């Protein structure tokens, strides 16, 4: 049983690190602010969700094995961190994009820009 849980932890960590790495590659490859934000803010959120899930599985596994409540605390706090990360990341990404567009940083390779046309 502990072997399986260890394996699950490693797989989740691997997926998380893979997506975080892809986010960094996207940051280097993409041309302007908006496309870079697609890569960094969101691929890394997905990656961080999986690394947090790895911590949760690890904590729950130790809690079931040892019945020591500090591991339950670890898992719950990792879960809270994951939820907060997902919420705040979406809001901050929106705030960044809006601020950039308001200060005149338009998407440079772009086929259309309805927000600039709408003139809000």
């Amino acid at each position: 049983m502990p072997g399986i849980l260890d394996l699950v932890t490693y797989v989740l960590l691997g997926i998380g690190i893979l997506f975080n790495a892809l986010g960094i590659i996207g940051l280097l490859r993409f041309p302007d602010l908006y496309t870079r934000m697609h890569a960094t803010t969101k691929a890394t959120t997905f990656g961080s969700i999986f690394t947090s899930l790895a911590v949760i599985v690890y904590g729950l596994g130790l809690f079931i094995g040892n019945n020591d409540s500090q591991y339950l605390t670890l898992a719950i706090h990792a879960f809270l961190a994951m939820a907060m990360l997902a919420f705040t990341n979406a809001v901050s990404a929106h705030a960044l994009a809006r601020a950039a567009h308001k200060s005149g940083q338009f998407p440079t390779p772009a086929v259309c820009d309805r927000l600039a046309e709408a003139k809000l």
Partner: protein
Amino acid sequence: MIPFLITTFLAFLGYLILTAGTGNIGLWSVTELIMGAILAVVTGALTRNFLCRSRDYRMLNPARFLRLLVYVPVPFFIELTRANLDVAYRVITGRIRPGIIRVRSNLRTDLGIFMLANSITLTPGTLTVGIDEKTHDLFIHNINLGEGEEKKEYFESTELFSLINLPAWIRKIAEHDKEAP
């Protein structure tokens, strides 16, 4: 009075979640329970005017809450995975065709638009840049528009999600019941 009770209850719940595993009444110790209750009442008294500012208690309906609890881990997570794989493909190949489009949300309430905008932002490949406050339209930066799609004046919000109809879920969770479709 009702906002005070709701805020107190949520504050107490948050305290219980943060201190789970400290003792043996359930998972909590006596000190934590008493301290949590006192702090929750203080928090509720101080912040009662912030959480329920609109005096609209439709989210107390348990059916909406259960739908929200199902929505986040199942349909939303499936869309999140699909979109992340798509962006991973674009990162590797570099094939992008970005543009800002106008999307009709057809939602009325602040909470509904908040949920739709956040769902759109969290699924990679689409990013909410702005909101038209009058018509409740969203402006979405899309990383890969299809050929010829830039000529369309409007998009429907369902077109952004290819697998599951997330706007219908959001409408069931957050919108008023008696509204014309």
